[in-house]
């Protein structure tokens, strides 16, 4: 092989290795990109993870939207978890409070986190929560049970096509990761 070819090969390989490393990084860059994209567009039913300030909207008494509540436990999370009501008819712009009940069934302290999801996903940005147990991890003493409120409003700007919104919570047992 001529020296010239060797040098050309070495240069090309260097460039291609940089491409490979760059693409490995790009794979990881997709993680924050995806989050940003979901937040900006409200895709995927991702809900804001912090409370919003309570502002007053003009209540639309002529419209009724059914809000359904779903509760679930991830895998074998040893808890009791339910909402006090299964669904409620709401007027857009009016504030409502719904209570959820969660109980630690073990004899140890448990740290758990509820992850919310809204469907249809595009309705998520119009569903505002001023108070929710899902904004932070919840610590339960052994056998402790507690009632926790969620206060929410549906923004009246929501498109007329939405008649039902489902709010689903899944409780995850994070004791192991939180203790560490």
């Amino acid at each position, binding site marked *: 092989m001529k020296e010239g*070819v060797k040098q*050309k*090969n070495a240069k*090309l*390989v260097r460039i*291609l*290795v940089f*491409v*490979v*490393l760059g*693409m*490995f990084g*790009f*794979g*990881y860059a*997709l*993680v924050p990109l*995806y989050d940003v994209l*979901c937040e900006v*567009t409200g*895709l*995927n*039913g*991702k809900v804001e*993870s912090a409370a919003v300030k309570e502002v007053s909207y003009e209540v639309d008494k002529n419209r009724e939207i059914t809000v359904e509540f779903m509760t679930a436990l*991830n895998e074998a999370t040893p808890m009791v978890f339910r909402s006090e009501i299964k669904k409620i008819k709401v007027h857009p712009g009016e504030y409502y409070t719904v209570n959820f009940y969660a109980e630690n069934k073990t004899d140890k302290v448990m740290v758990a*986190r509820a*992850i919310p999801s809204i*469907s*249809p*996903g*595009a309705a998520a940005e119009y569903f505002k929560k001023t108070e929710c147990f899902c904004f932070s991890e919840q610590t339960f003493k052994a056998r402790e049970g507690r009632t926790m409120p969620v206060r929410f409003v549906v923004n009246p700007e929501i498109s007329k096509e939405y008649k039902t919104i489902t709010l689903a919570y*899944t409780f*995850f*047992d*994070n004791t192991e*990761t939180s203790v*560490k």
Partner: protein
Amino acid sequence: MSAVVAEHDDHHDHGPAKGLLRWVITTNHKDIGTLYLLFALAMFFVGGSMAMVIRAELFEPGMQFVNPQFFNSMTTMHALVMVFGAVMPAFVGLANWMIPMMIGSPDMALPRMNNMSFWLLVAGVLLLASTLFMEGGAPASGWTLYPPLVLQTGKALPFAIFSVHLLGISSILGGINIIATIFNMRAPGMTLMKMPMFVWTWLITAFLLIAIMPVFAGAVTMLLTDKFFHTSFFDAAGGGDPVLYQHIFWFFGHPEVYVMILPTFGVASTIIPVFARKPLFGYSSMVYATAAIAFLSFIVWAHHMFTVGMPIAGELYFMYATMLIAIPTGVKIFNWTATMWKGSMTFETPMLFSIAFVVLFTMGGFTGLMMAVAPADFQYHDTYFIVAHFHYTLVPASVFILMAAGYFWLPKWTGHMYDERIGQLHFWLSVVSVNILFFPQHFLGLAGMPRRIPDYAVQFADWNMISSIGGFIFGASQLLFLYIVINTIKGGTGEKVTGEVWEDAAKHSLEWTLPSPPPYHSFTTPPTVIPTEHM
């Protein structure tokens, strides 16, 4: 395979090392090509045996032979072995053998890296195979390795992930080597737009490989840290999202399926003109179509995830972008047809397999278009319809073309002619049985049979039985190919083949200007005349 040293370049051609160690330490492109091809053939039978287990279990409703966990391991391992162990290495083997000869170079640009990428492949596949014997069994989540399901894999999970890393590094090294060879090792006068289509398709495929394999490596690394180091990339409890994995996976996964089909196109574009005795119709449009398909493959990934709950705008975008791929692909299909049009065609085994590829791949493409229609996909998603679709694009397309390539180049590689009668028998058995095997799966899918299940409702019984019978015939027929390969290496029909092998082949591509078998180092002095009949 014996390497004959040609008389005219004896002064720096030292030939292969003696003994078995030759195959371990070799840096020769032909030796490594042979290793890749034989390894791929072996894995084709390993993956095929797994498919036989699947079809045997699905022969009748109810549980017959294996438990559901093992069944799901079989579908997962069948896919991983066939994709990463059989089809991809087979094409890398062809690239190793053919690219240096086609562009008039003595060897690959980076011979030692070439050796390393082959042995990393072997290590990766062995590591993957070892998971079958681990506590909790091999991965059973499907080849897509979706979390959270894949995180329930037993002891095998980290081994499967490291195996993916090794296979990825092997592919990346192979890709870098191919790009360097094509860019820097071409004979004088071999301009980019004079390269044979096979070289072009591999150049583009190699770029796909180095762009996507690192992304997949990243995705499985995230799975690994999610499982063992409490990260939460895909774990909803920590604020992650399992759907994110699907996006990253298919960003890799969609170009990955083109990694398996683009070289297929290249081989088809090589074989059809030789047996039609005409230049390839629309050479430059073939080049641009290949590049267009490769580009589009990066922007359509979410058509694999229409049912995850995307907003309507996303569904529409991915639907139309996906349909766009039919245009460059259609260009190719029409070009192959036009190449055959009014050609003086003869129907030797490689041509038969290539024609079957054009017809059956078109069918696989059309079912792909059906599923690109987002609202219709909600019905087809994760049913046997998708199984039928991608098997049509992989088995009677990629695998048939690999068979065609085998028949086409075996005489060149070995210097012996294969037995044409057995070749034709192999073709007809394969082409009939592959349709008995996969065509009924369209009906099963449209009727609602889900994929990846070991047992099913009784209304699916008849077509499953027919599909299984086709599967057994197809599987058994491939033993004929094994016989032909061994027989041809050992001397074949005894007929002495010329350097050209096929009539006027030397007008199409440089490898036919060399004797059969070619010298250990292909072109120690660059060729002076560049064939242009392929374009």
